[in-house]
């Protein structure tokens, strides 16, 4: 408990944008064949430092087979909520779930170069107290830390629907399930909210048997992955509306609401349209009457390719889909970054008018077919995947691995972890920084990135920009 609010809590997104630039990044490392322990890499991103672009500290966990994926802070700008009146938590702990083991690590990063494990929540406790499994997305919210899960109970996680559970933000004890009325929601992936407007939006990937051993082509072609988004009354914990994006819009993943809480719209990325192999972005928004609507605003067409250049899974299509697997919105709500993991492209859209996005910048790196090298001459291995934007919106970082078993289907062989950075032009445009390239330990892959002091996919703000 602090006497003053943590200096990295900001009332509005604009205040956060004016904060000093990040000097460290936290990146998850996973052992794709589960032969070694996963870990957290602390990366120096201070251009004035001698160790710029290098891993300066690692925390390896004592277990194998966790498969790290997404993670988040114990506390963020949401702590300044006028409703909670308790602004004195520290942004100090990273909550890192193992998506495969259901184990959750709480890491103390108060002194980043001496970061260490603070607490481990064993999988049995998660199963017992929540009936959920495979914890995934972390957000700090009104009642504590929210953890979304991808699986229900039972061995294969299909006994009951997956959902969200709550962790106490100080003791990290599991409090219990979030949902009081989930409506027809039966799959889960991402979720985020607008705290003052009291709504939450959640998305759907698939159930554990549909992803743990790789994508199931029959399920995909018969549109059995998630394709709906759910709107919740956040504090009543009720699903108030479900929008079906259309069964062909398979795997609605990342939910990115506008950061300014006075705005009532946001975005969701769709991995692939099974009718035409397009990737898609939908804009969703709250209407005058309080209900929600959604509309497809961006499509990314597949790129024709020689069957010889394609992995087994795609050979029959003669084309490589964009595979929109992550999106991220800058704090000024102006630029939406879209990772096209299959094609090896990072797109930057100007979404000042959220209903009419305009492509403002693009970087090509990696890709199933193109295999574009980094400007420093090195192979990127896979495609752009988890993307994170600096608070000031001037730097965009990304890694290259999607998920162990899926990597192997789309990019067979072991191709190495990577983390790169691109600079954003004054008025858009995106250029890879030649001098930023993080070397990871042999045999590991890299996934989500968090920036010291908050970034564009962790903090929820309680006051509008003025």
């Amino acid at each position, binding site marked *: *408990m*602090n*006497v*003053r*609010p943590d200096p990295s*809590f*900001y*009332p*509005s997104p604009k*205040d956060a944008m004016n904060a000093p630039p990040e000097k460290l990044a936290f990146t998850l490392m996973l052992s794709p064949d589960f032969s070694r322990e996963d870990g957290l890499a602390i990366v120096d991103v201070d251009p004035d430092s001698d160790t710029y672009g290098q891993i300066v500290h690692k925390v390896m966990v004592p277990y194998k087979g966790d498969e790290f994926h997404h993670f988040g802070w114990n506390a963020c700008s949401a702590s*300044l909520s*006028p*409703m*909670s*009146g*308790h*602004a*004195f938590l520290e942004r100090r702990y990273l909550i890192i779930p193992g998506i495969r083991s259901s184990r959750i690590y709480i890491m103390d990063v108060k002194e980043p170069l001496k970061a260490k494990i603070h607490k481990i929540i064993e999988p049995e406790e998660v199963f017992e107290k929540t009936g959920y499994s495979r914890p995934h997305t972390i957000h700090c919210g*009104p*009642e*504590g830390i929210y953890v979304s899960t991808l699986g229900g109970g039972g061995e294969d996680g299909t006994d009951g629907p997956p959902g969200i559970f709550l962790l106490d933000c100080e003791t990290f004890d599991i*409090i219990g399930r979030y949902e009081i009325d989930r409506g027809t929601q039966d799959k889960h992936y991402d979720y985020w909210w607008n*705290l*003052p*407007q*009291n709504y939450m939006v959640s998305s759907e990937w698939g159930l554990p048997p549909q992803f743990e051993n790789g994508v199931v082509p029959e399920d995909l072609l018969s549109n059995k992955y998630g394709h709906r988004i759910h709107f919740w*009354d956040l*504090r*009543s914990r009720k699903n108030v509306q479900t929008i079906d994006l259309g069964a062909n819009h398979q795997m609605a993943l990342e939910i990115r609401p506008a950061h300014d*809480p*006075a705005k009532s719209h946001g975005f969701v990325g769709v991995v692939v349209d099974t009718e035409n192999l397009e990737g898609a972005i939908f804009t969703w928004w709250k209407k005058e009457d309080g209900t929600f609507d959604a509309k497809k605003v961006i499509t990314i067409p597949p790129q024709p390719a020689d069957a010889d250049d394609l992995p087994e899974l795609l050979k029959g299509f003669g084309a490589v889909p964009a595979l929109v697997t992550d999106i991220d919105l800058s704090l000024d709500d102006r630029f939406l970054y879209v990772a096209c993991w299959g094609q090896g492209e990072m797109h930057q859209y100007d979404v000042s008018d959220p209903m009419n996005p305009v492509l403002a910048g693009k970087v090509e790196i990696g890709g199933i077919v193109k295999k574009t090298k980094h400007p420093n001459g090195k192979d990127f291995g896979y495609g752009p995947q988890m993307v994170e934007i600096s608070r000031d919106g001037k730097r965009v970082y990304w890694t290259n691995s999607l998920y162990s078993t899926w990597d192997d289907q789309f990019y067979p062989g072991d191709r190495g972890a990577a983390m790169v950075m691109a600079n954003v032009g004054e008025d858009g445009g995106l250029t890879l920084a030649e001098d930023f390239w993080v070397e990871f330990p042999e045999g590991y892959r890299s996934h989500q990135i968090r920036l010291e002091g908050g970034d564009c996919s962790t903090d929820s703000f*309680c*006051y*509008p920009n*003025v």
Partner: protein
Amino acid sequence: MMEMETAAGLWLAVIVSGLYHGLNPGMGWPLAVSAALMERKPSALYRALGALSGGHLLAMLIVLVPFAAMSALVRWQVEIQVGAALILLALGLYLAITKRHPRFLARVKPHQLGLWSFLVALAHGAALMLVPIYLGLCAIDELDAGHAAASTLMQNAGLLFVVAIAHTLAMLVSGGALAVGVYRWFGLRAIHQTWINTEAIWAWSLVGVGAFTLVWALVGH
């Protein structure tokens, strides 16, 4: 003369505790700022302050009414004061030691400001803090001997409203001034800059008021 001074001191306490509650962000002034910013109109700020004050006032009344009813039982005055003191001590120590925040408050929706303010004032003991002050004022009234029980009850009921309203007005003045200041002049950063963790001070001030009441009741005044 002594009574006059004591009465003045107690009325001062009614006002000062109101000002104190108003300044505490935990009692809601940032919500008024947020309401005005979200709705993009200053009138929302005043409406929010109205709802917050209404909730606070209601909490005061609900907590004070049982004591007003009991305070007519002049013979049990000491016991009643001791009871109030013990409740204050217990809540203060509970808040000081556990440092827990009541989770049910997180279920209140952002537009339910009156309800929020009402629950916060109850849960954090803001309303309770007024009880000893109120009982003190009742006791002084009764020193003007010769009141019939019925008229004492009437008088105490009247006093109850005056105390609760005076306290709430003081809270409205200080909290409102901060909210308007931040909204119009200081900007949002002031929320961050002025927010100081008063949780420990708050808990111990409950304990302090409780202890003082206990001594006062037992040793005599």
